[in-house]
């Protein structure tokens, strides 16, 4: 599904990614974890072509992403912070993104799911952080793409929306899609992901199931397993 080979990226003097090799197979939920500033978002943005890597190759569904924009038709992406143009209305934004990609009716179901009807005519600049995140989710999930990338999807969501989001992700997985998630909420990751990828100092430190991580670190629960990696490496 997604193959990353020897990916390097530097921002000024700051080496963010130093030789990432990653192969994500089709179907299932993959969580990308790591401490703050470990390069999770940079990795994801490289896959999306928003960050241009210094070195390395990325293929998405067999297509090399260099100098290519068509492959993004197959990706639904949820950005980390929902920075929308503040003078647009929610309705206009949804319509515009639909015009850019393809017509869909899925948005109506999602709007109802996240109870967004009262906000449709409001301007995006006047929405609360959580509501913006819900709009963000609608925009992401309304297209039926085989690869879904979620960067911190839980930010600002209330408990009930969080439950709905989990159900939504599980439903997508049941359709055989591949979901890539970054999150700092360990309980969320533990509940939802099939496999985790742990990034430390620009390299992949661990890839495998949560069970495997627990055995590797000799810790009974997931949260402590992650914490033990971080303390062992003085990160």
């Amino acid at each position, binding site marked *: 599904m997604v193959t990353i080979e020897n990916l390097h990226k530097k921002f000024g003097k700051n080496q963010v990614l130093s030789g990432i090799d990653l192969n994500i197979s089709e179907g299932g939920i993959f969580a990308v974890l790591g401490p703050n500033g470990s390069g999770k978002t940079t990795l994801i943005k490289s896959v999306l072509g*928003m960050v241009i890597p210094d070195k390395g190759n990325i293929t998405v569904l067999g297509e090399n992403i260099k100098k290519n924009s068509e492959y*993004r038709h197959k990706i639904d992406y949820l*950005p980390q912070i929902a920075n*929308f143009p503040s003078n647009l209305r929610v309705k206009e934004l949804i319509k515009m993104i639909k015009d*850019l990609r393809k017509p869909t009716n899925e948005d109506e179901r999602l709007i109802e799911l996240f109870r967004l009807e009262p906000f449709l005519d409001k301007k995006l600049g006047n929405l609360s952080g959580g509501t913006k995140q819900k709009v963000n989710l609608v925009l992401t999930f309304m297209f039926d793409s085989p690869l879904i990338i979620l960067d911190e999807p839980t930010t600002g969501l209330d408990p009930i929306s969080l439950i709905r989001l989990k159900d939504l992700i599980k439903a997508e997985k049941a359709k055989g899609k591949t979901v890539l998630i970054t999150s700092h909420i360990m309980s969320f990751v533990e509940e939802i992901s099939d496999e985790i990828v742990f990034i430390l100092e620009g390299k992949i430190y661990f890839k495998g199931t949560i069970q495997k991580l627990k055995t590797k670190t000799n810790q009974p629960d997931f949260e402590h397993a992650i914490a033990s990696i971080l303390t062992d490496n003085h990160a």
Partner: protein
Amino acid sequence: MRSRWSYVYFAFYLLLGVVLLFLNNDLSKAVITLMNVIIVLVPLIGTIFGVMYYYNSQEFTELLLAQPIKRSSIFLGQYLGVALSLSMSLILGLGIPFVFYGLFESSAIWDFSLLLITGTFLTLIFTALAFNIALSNENKIKGFGYAILLWLFLAVIYDGLFLMTLILFEDYPLDKVSLIGTMLNPIDLSRTLILLKLDISALLGYTGAVFKQFFGTSFGLIVSFVMLTIWVVMPVLRIVFKSKKKDF
């Protein structure tokens, strides 16, 4: 944001056109006054709007970048959106009062069209330059600063330096130098073009004759327009090139 300001800009030119016609009561005199305004104001507005628009729509750009659209289409689309709406404001805002005043029956129509054409060129050039500056500067304050400096340099300082060189080297033949110097600055080039077309080249003093010889001919006119086109194309190419390499 963009649309509201381009209406204000349009209204400003409309008002300017009406007031000038009313005060001058003569088409060709109004054209001369307009030239002085346009030569300075159009680049300034193009620069400021370009920088402002780029920084204001950054969030929107990021949203678009994750969509299946080519980078060059995103940035060229934004550039053309700003530059063309500014040009439309200029052309319509000035055109409407002049047309109502009886432009089509007047001999000033060619001068006036030349004014609008150079105005449009200047808008395209300076918006493109502004986008270049904004693309290369993450920091908004710096971006604005550089943009204003660029305008100040080309509109005011360049002339000063140019004049000083002419005085310093007055013992040498300066025809070629002054000609090339004028060609290299789009503002100077536009000003000279219009002045010569208006047949007031006597104002230009002793180099006036040389200029008249060059710019007055159709060859000079063509070379001038080629230069202006190059001034548009170069920064636009850099927008495409730079945007392909940028990280978001």
